[in-house]
């Protein structure tokens, strides 16, 4: 099921939760709505499901205008953040609920329902828990049951609201992988909401980054991580150092020194240079056309070693180096970004010329 969202807006009283949202969700894709709390991601999901009515705009399910249809007519599966399992029903009854509430004419036979429930329990890898009550399950098991319950009605699209938000780190990781497998096996168009960038980047085919009710960027995890479209996305996804610079005559000037970048930057004025810790080359101190930095400290950071360095004006810059690199606090270095983005004060990304693999230079 393909979903198109056109010029969607939602106000809660005077508070605009969403505005000007345009989005195409492709059939069969696994899409993440990523953003900090208050960015409107859950509101968007609830509007898609029909649990919330938009103030403005339209939602199309395929060619059908779904804006005026009720939740029941939309036939969507929705998995709630806190599972919302019916606590007075067994796992089997929970999963069967969507089938048993159908009008008599459309309701499958009891045997058919039982068969379907068992099939779904097998799919979510809980084959023996049919007779348990939700209170007897762990968080991860509850989430699986909630998913099985949503799938039982064979929805046209599957929505998950912070599906792993309430689980601990290890369970989360396992479930993430498992959800991807389920998605690949069943082929449901799936949209999930998360505030966890790792979850979005690892799990989704495409990621929609939301901020303050607007879409900041839509792209594959690679695009989002490697080419953030706005300062917000750069700050929100992954680590980055921000260095205030001035753009003059096509060059980037820091502390009165023009950086030796192999491109010409278009535009003029104050800007901010964004660089990820792993996108630096380190040179001998006082190399011309590079930033001068002093190592303030080093710490182990996953597979690499992270250097906390300070520039001349005291601004901190984080750099990832191989752990065997011999550096110590007090060492002086010169730094040159290999990959970077430049945003002017109004948030516009600076264009560069000539257009040849922007931001990437041979190690100097």
């Amino acid at each position, binding site marked *: 099921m393909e979903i198109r969202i056109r010029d969607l807006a939602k106000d809660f009283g005077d508070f605009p939760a969403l505005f000007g949202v345009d989005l195409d969700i492709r059939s069969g894709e696994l899409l993440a709505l990523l953003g900090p709390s208050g960015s409107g991601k859950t509101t968007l999901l609830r509007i898609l*499901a029909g*649990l919330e009515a938009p103030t403005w705009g339209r939602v199309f399910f395929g060619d059908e205008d779904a804006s005026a249809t009720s*939740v*029941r007519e939309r*036939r*969507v*599966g*929705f998995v*709630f953040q*806190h599972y*919302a*399992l*019916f*606590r*007075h029903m067994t796992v089997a009854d929970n999963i069967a*609920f*969507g089938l048993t*509430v*159908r009008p008599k004419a459309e309701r499958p036979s009891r045997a058919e329902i039982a068969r379907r429930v068992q099939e779904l329990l097998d799919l979510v890898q809980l084959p023996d828990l049919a007779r348990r009550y939700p209170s007897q399950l762990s968080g991860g098991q509850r989430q699986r049951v909630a998913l099985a*319950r*949503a799938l*039982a*009605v064979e929805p046209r699209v599957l929505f998950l609201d912070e599906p792993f938000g309430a689980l601990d780190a290890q369970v989360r990781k396992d479930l993430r992988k498992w959800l991807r497998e389920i998605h690949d096996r069943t082929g449901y168009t799936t949209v999930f909401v998360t505030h966890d960038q790792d979850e979005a980047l690892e799990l989704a085919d495409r990621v929609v980054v939301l901020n303050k009710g607007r879409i900041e960027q839509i792209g594959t995890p690679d695009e989002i991580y490697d080419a953030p479209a706005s300062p917000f996305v750069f700050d929100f996804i992954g680590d980055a150092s921000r260095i205030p610079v001035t753009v003059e005559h096509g060059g980037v000037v820091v502390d009165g020194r023009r950086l030796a970048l192999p491109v010409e930057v278009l535009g003029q004025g104050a800007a901010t240079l964004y660089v990820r810790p792993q996108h630096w080359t380190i040179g001998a101190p006082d190399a011309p056309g590079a930033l001068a930095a002093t190592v303030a400290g080093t710490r182990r950071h996953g597979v690499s070693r992270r250097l906390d360095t300070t520039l001349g004006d005291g601004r901190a810059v984080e750099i990832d180096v191989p752990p065997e690199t011999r550096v110590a606090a007090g060492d002086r270095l010169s730094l040159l970004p290999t990959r970077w983005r430049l945003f002017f004060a109004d948030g516009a990304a600076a264009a560069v010329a000539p257009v040849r693999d922007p931001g990437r230079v041979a190690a100097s």
Partner: protein
Amino acid sequence: MATDQTFPLDPPRPRALPVPPPIGETVVARWTLVAIAGLFLALVLVLPIAGVFTEGLRKGIWAYFKSFGDPDALASIQLTLLVAVISVPANLVFGVAASWAITKFDFPGKSLLITLIDLPFSVSPVVSGLVFVLLFGAQGLFGPFLAAHGLKVIFAVPGLVLATIFVTFPFVARELIPLMEAQGAADEEAALTLGASGWTIFRRVTLPNIKWGLLYGVLLCNARAMGEFGAVSVVSGHIRGLTNTMPLQVEILYNEYDFVGAFAMASILAGLALITLVLKTFLEWRFGDELAANRRH
């Protein structure tokens, strides 16, 4: 002198010093507080209830039961049951509807409704009764209309029911609103996305979630409905055998120095209170996590 290098392998542990409990009160202070509380309870609760039963049985078990044989006494018991049977279900429906509306929807006047539900708790029962006299009494707002159509509200059963409903309507709603608020709407939304209709959602999801809280509210509502004196007294008119409920009958008998009769009748009310207490305690013990009252306390 050379130091001896042998150390005991297991040095004796220093003995734990008696540490005063962190809350700080001494044993004497704690027992004094408990004693005061116990004495107070005995004085204002246990003693009077025991008194009710001993006074009722003062002239023997025969006189005790004989007093219920009086037609007026029997009529008052029947009337009390009738009033409860009408007003408790009425408040059950109202309480569920109001709680549902307040917790699941937003609508204009919502906070006003919440405030109004509490009104009977803050208004003197006598005033509650007077309101109905002013509305439906002979000189009241609807008095001429009712008289013209031969309907009697005040000094008749409808007035008693109205006054009782008024006084007891917060009980169910007050129990359900915090409970349903805490549960949120996620269960109902889940049922909705699974294709259930409104009535099915109420019957299969909402009602099972609130059933113990509802029962608890109904229990308290019923206890109050049977025991209400003030409001009912105003609208009753004290017509023997017709508009006297049990609490009113107790007063009449007492004023006529029929102590056995008065206390025998009172003992039924006291017994009802004890049964309510036992059931209430059982509900709180067994389904405490599903009762809003427990979270409030």
